[in-house]
């Protein structure tokens, strides 16, 4: 953990998504899955939107996936992120749960190199003793080619 104080916005977990943040603290990515129909659900919610079951279980997934879409921010928004400009945020489809699209920053990639279809893996940023974030970065597959 950096000894520099983390100054960007922190999450405010609710009853609905507290478990996800507990998992990230342990460097585990937990996603809800319906016990009755096995549908993966994201964002966190109270009820299965496929079969109306309340029986949802937090299930660990490997945070590897593929960039589905992205945007690179160049314009200052008056936020704490202005010091990072330009930065890229992507929508990532997870291999382990293809119905799940997760948003995260993509680090270690130039604005003109990030692209749809790019393979990324999760990394963990321990921002405070209470909060860990899931980020992404590109990685080479074993064959060195895109999926």
């Amino acid at each position, binding site marked *: 953990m950096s000894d520099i104080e983390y100054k*960007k*916005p*922190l*999450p*405010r*977990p*609710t009853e*609905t*998504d507290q478990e996800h*943040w507990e998992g990230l603290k342990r460097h585990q990515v937990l996603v809800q899955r319906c016990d009755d129909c096995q549908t993966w659900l*994201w*964002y*966190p*919610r109270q009820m299965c*939107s496929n079969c109306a079951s309340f029986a949802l279980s937090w299930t660990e997934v490997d945070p590897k996936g593929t960039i*589905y*879409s*992205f*945007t*690179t*921010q*160049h*314009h200052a*928004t*008056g*936020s704490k*992120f202005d010091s*990072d400009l*330009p*930065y890229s*945020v992507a*929508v990532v489809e997870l291999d382990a749960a293809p*119905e*799940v*699209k*997760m*948003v*995260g*920053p993509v680090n270690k990639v130039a*604005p003109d190199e990030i692209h*749809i279809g790019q393979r990324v893996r999760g990394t963990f940023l321990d921002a405070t003793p209470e909060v860990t*974030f899931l980020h992404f970065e590109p990685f080479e597959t074993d064959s060195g080619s895109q999926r």
Partner: protein
Amino acid sequence: MSTPKGDVQAAIVGIGETEFTKESGVSDLRLSLEATKAALADAELNAHDIDGIIIPTVVGATTEDLTTNLGIENLRYHAAVVMGGAGPAAALRHAKTAVENGLASRILVCYGFNGRSGARLGRRGPTLMFGEAPSMRRNYEGVHGLLVPAQYYALWAQRYMYENGWKSTEPMAHVAVAQSHHAVMNGKAVGAKEISVEDHQSSRMISAPFRLYDCSRETDGGAAYIVAAAEPGDRNAVAIRGAAEGHPGQADQPTTRRRFLHTGMAEAGERAFAQAGWKPGDVDFAELYDAFTFNVLWQLELLGLCGPGEAADFVMAGSTRVGGALPVNTHGGLLSQAHLWGINHITEAVKQLRGIAGEAQVNGAKRGLVTGSGDFGDNAVVLLEGGPA
């Protein structure tokens, strides 16, 4: 098919606009009241005639502010539409329903907001007030720097470009160029100037793939309209023939949608056309909600105004210019006239249908289409017809 219950046909009977500026120097409420005063004068009504109010956005004046200032003593219908930029168009649907079913006889819809000198959309998060969506947006998007509307629409645009095999953003440039031309013809936007494709392509990057000229013009201003039963022979009344809304699943969670490019706009269009008994080819012009250039291209396809995958060629051929096959955003739109959450699309459509749209008047404009899009998952489509009822 377009004859409503009891033979009452709701129409827009009055419109009003303030000046559109970068710094109004007055309050949001004052802008709302100035626009309302102009709409009342246009409709030849006074404030005491208003018995219904629909608040079309989550900014500006409340019903209570309006009744107090306007001296409305006999309000019998009030509603608020929380659909972001879709509100002003969706409010027409509620006003039509209320008037045609006798819930109110004259309904005011007004908007006033210092969108440039006050809280700018490019510098703050979306305004959602209750439910779990604000927490989820903060916890999974805001904490990662996904903050402003340009970024959300950029995610859609990037995916659309990928799926349609675009090599560049030139089609978006052509939208910006056409609308800058319309804004100059319209003359209402302060400092409107015509831009070129090159100006667009060399403008600074905002939220890739969007450049400066892909983004709308944050503006201080207000506009209002009044809906009432069309009186026979009233040449100023513009009939509301169709009005519908559409929403995707996971409406407040665009990044996680299973059908990423599904917004509900296509369904809203189908419903509106069915209600009016029209086909997409029947409209003479369209005022499409254009927070960003991409939205115009996307909607042309979703509404069947051109074929799937054909929007780029359609726009680059000049079809959306005044004088083209389907003039779009004849006032310059949100991009080049003013971002007023789309209420200026409605006032412009009324002007076109009355034949008073000035230099950018579409010859023989009889039928127009207006859309609204907001909150990343709320859409509305309205079909308007001019001429005596």
